[in-house]
């Protein structure tokens, strides 16, 4: 019976926390005295008279392509950066290290402003290009460090075995090291991607049409900020929920053979 006690303690603690949350929410909403109306949002999804997507769908599309493009480019940067940090010479390592430290230790918002107002104007880049470039570099900086850590902690044994069988370094990397590293990398990779989807909301400050920008436009038109932001939060949640579950599913599929 000794083992029963801690588990019951956890249950009661959880109930207490949930109750506190529920009461605060209920009190908050009753005290608000606000006339909720979600129905008006319909028009922002689809404009019936012109048969075109509304602000919300336009924004969602913006968020999707900005995120996907930044994830793809950021992953490429991260892979390259991680490999250089792991295996490069001291000059290239220092260069990548500087890049990583700058992009990890400054706010993305500042990076966006610098990219858009300083660099983009010099190279005649559009706001979209500047936004995707910033997010890709930001994501790439984090991934570089992740890839480096994964490579450094990887067991050298299977790689030695591959080399000892006469495979070239490239063949060993392609057939043994990469698949093993990817399996290790998967959970933190998905975490980074989820972060990036949320951070993509920041590109609204350089007036790229994406979900957050659309939401503020919708608020400006309808004066109903509560409903709009709630809906937007739900959409971000659904996107990231799907993304992390897809990640977990791939992870399971890949490592099923490792932990069976």
């Amino acid at each position, binding site marked *: 019976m000794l083992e029963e006690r801690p588990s019951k303690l956890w249950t009661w603690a959880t109930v207490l926390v949930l109750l506190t949350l529920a009461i605060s929410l209920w009190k908050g909403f009753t005290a608000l005295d606000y006339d909720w109306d979600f129905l008006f949002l319909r028009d922002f999804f689809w404009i019936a008279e012109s048969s075109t997507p509304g602000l919300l769908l336009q924004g969602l599309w913006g968020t999707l392509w900005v995120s996907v493009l930044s994830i793809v480019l950021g992953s490429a940067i991260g892979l390259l950066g991680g490999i250089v940090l792991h295996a490069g010479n001291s000059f290239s390592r220092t260069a990548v290290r500087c890049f990583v430290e700058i992009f990890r230790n400054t706010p993305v918002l500042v990076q966006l402003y610098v990219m858009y107002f300083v660099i983009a104007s010099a190279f005649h880049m559009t706001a979209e290009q500047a936004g995707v470039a910033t997010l890709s570099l930001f994501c790439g900086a984090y991934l570089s460090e992740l890839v480096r850590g994964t490579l450094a902690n990887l067991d050298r*044994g*299977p790689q*030695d*075995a*591959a*080399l*000892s*069988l*006469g*495979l*070239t*370094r490239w*063949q060993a990397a392609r*057939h*043994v090291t990469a*698949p*093993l590293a990817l*399996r290790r990398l998967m959970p933190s990779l998905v975490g980074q991607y989820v972060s990036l989807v949320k951070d993509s909301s920041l590109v609204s400050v350089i007036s790229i049409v994406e979900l957050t920008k659309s939401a503020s436009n919708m608020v400006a038109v309808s004066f109903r900020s509560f409903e709009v932001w709630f809906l937007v939060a739900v959409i971000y949640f659904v996107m990231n929920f799907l993304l992390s579950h897809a990640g977990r599913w791939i992870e399971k599929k890949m490592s099923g*053979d*490792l*932990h*069976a």
Partner: protein
Amino acid sequence: MRDNNTPAVEMKSVSKSFQTKGAATLALDHVTLDVAAGDIVTLIGPSGSGKSTCLRTINGLETISSGEIRVFGKPYGRSKDAFLVRRDTAMIFQRFELFPHLNALENIALAPRVRLGKSKEEAFETAHALLKKVGLEAHGSKFPRMLSGGQQQRVAIARALAVQPRILLCDEPTSALDPELVDDVLELLKTVASTGMTMVIVTHEMRFARDVSKKCYFFDAGRIVETGPTDALLGHPQSPRLRTFLASLHR
């Protein structure tokens, strides 16, 4: 093609030093060693004596600081094309080092497919035959984690044989095995030895060393302390260091 007069392995005054906290440690201290084609040679000695490092320099998994190594007459050392030499050698590791993401058959078939450019069917056919040879034909679709240590090591031996090496390097092939699994692996290595394969074996199994090898090298502190025919070396050790080492094994 094969010239029997060319030694399989020639190491001339090979040294290797590690840099640890500013101080240089000599892992190999002027090691000179010869393996004739078709011979089986064992390397013995206490742990940390350099015998495993010596074995790993033969196929270039460890670089050397000075000296010369020739494998079938081909010189190499610090050069980056060690993989050319690795095409004559294959290796068995203490901790098996199977590819954890591939099943037993795929483990064996990988190098024939990637390196020898065999078709998928051909590579898997060879893998099947080899798996049967090591007595594991029923375990082809199992992943390394699902196999016992002894089974993993047998798959590793099949994987090494799949690239048709001229020299098989064995790095303490039974040290990580439970005692009851050791004999299976040693029997299998004896079978391989009986095919005329050139082998260099690092081992702590003195009975096995006596059974398979004609020549034996005793390592201590990175140096070859004593060498000679295995029977004589183990039966009548000359140096006090080897005598203490052999006595410690019998305790």
